[in-house]
């Protein structure tokens, strides 16, 4: 069975290491914060100017001056720090953020990513996505393996306007976990009950399948 959004987030959370500074994008990536493994301390960066983002506030405790990059009211954890947007993207650009998790419309087998613009539709802007994908040390994409029409989102080349090139390192989709390697997508794990054949059929870009592919276990 394909993973649901929470399970995608849960699987991604296993990539966290103690001491990581992490930037989580809007959508599924945000959920990763709910599954941080025990014994592991990570610090969440919000690119609007915060290190040490905490959970949503209790009702009545919202502070209009304290939001995340998705403009949601949030809280801080002990040891947090505020800074301006130049420093925020400065620390991202300098590689101080260990891991960025974000969504995508398309990923190419070279690791290119498209996630900000659909020609003909109202374009809202790239926000911080172009900065994040161009700068982050390690980028994991969380997304559905196919689009609502059933077409693969893992392509030989992106068809949509690019957000960044050669930057995605890993994909966790509803069907599989894959690394982006110089030779193409490399299948690492499959969702419970999802066959390698199904993943192959739903991956349009070059896919490397070597040996036995284990199921993701929760």
């Amino acid at each position, binding site marked *: 069975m394909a993973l649901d959004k929470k399970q995608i987030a849960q699987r991604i959370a296993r990539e966290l290491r103690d001491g990581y500074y992490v930037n989580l994008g809007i959508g599924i990536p945000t959920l990763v914060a709910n599954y941080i493994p025990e014994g592991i301390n990570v610090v969440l960066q919000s690119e609007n100017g915060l290190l040490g983002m905490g959970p949503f506030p209790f009702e009545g405790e919202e502070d209009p001056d304290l939001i995340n990059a998705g403009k949601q009211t949030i809280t801080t954890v002990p040891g947090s720090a505020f800074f301006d947007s130049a420093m*925020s993207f400065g620390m991202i650009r300098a590689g101080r953020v260990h891991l960025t998790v974000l969504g995508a419309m398309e990923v190419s087998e070279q690791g*290119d990513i498209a996630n900000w613009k659909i020609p003909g539709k109202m374009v*809202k802007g790239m926000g911080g996505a172009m*900065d994040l994908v*161009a700068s982050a040390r390690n980028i994991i994409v969380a997304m559905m393996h196919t689009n609502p029409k059933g077409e693969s989102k893992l392509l030989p080349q992106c068809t949509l306007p*690019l957000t960044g090139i050669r930057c995605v390192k890993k994909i966790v989709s509803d069907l599989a976990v894959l690394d982006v390697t110089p030779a193409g997508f490399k299948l690492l794990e499959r969702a419970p009950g999802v066959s390698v054949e199904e993943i192959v059929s739903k991956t349009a870009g070059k896919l490397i399948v070597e040996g036995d592919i284990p199921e993701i276990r929760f």
Partner: protein
Amino acid sequence: MNKVYTDASDAIADIHDGAVLMLGGFGLCGIPEHCIAALVAKGVKGLTCISNNAGVDDFGIGLMLQQKQVKKMISSYVGENQEFERQLLSGELEVELIPQGTLALRCLAAGYGMPAVFTPAGVGTEVAEGKEVRRFNDKEYLMEMAFESDFALVKAWKGDTHGNLIFKDTARNFNPLMAMAGKITIAEVEMLVPAGELNPNEIHTPGIYVNRIFEGRNYEKRIEQRTVRPRS
């Protein structure tokens, strides 16, 4: 050397049609809401607004859009409002979308007297079109130019009569950067105190960057996405 103005309409009185403005804030957080209200009341037109976002239909820069005061937006993320979309699709409004970090860096460049800066954001994308690409240590960067603007409108938490500013939480965002970048910088603050009352180690924007300051009353500080968790 009086920098203190009585209110927003006083502080923005010389903002003219066609001016290039920077407006601090991220979403509706930390926006100069009194300056925006005064600009709406003044009815100045043909403005270019450099601001990370464009407000919502009935708050923030959205209020200026309703009055068709904005000719061009330079932002990283827009379209939280209907009127914006209508004007964009009808061609009444010009929009230049740039990466958020690039927006910040182009403000910093202006504030620090650097004519141009290098960033990898947008390399290989349509953002790179027409820009100089340069390779350093096997990585490509775009050369992006410092912003030039006539006025920067920023909102701080506390300020003093010398123009020193302190921001609160994530309402800081682009405000200190734009405060440094404006040819004339106008700061509105929730609390204006006499020089000497702020701790000089806690100041985010030194007064040298601030030309005018006033205390705004009754801030609305609207929340765009109210998210809460249940009490356990």
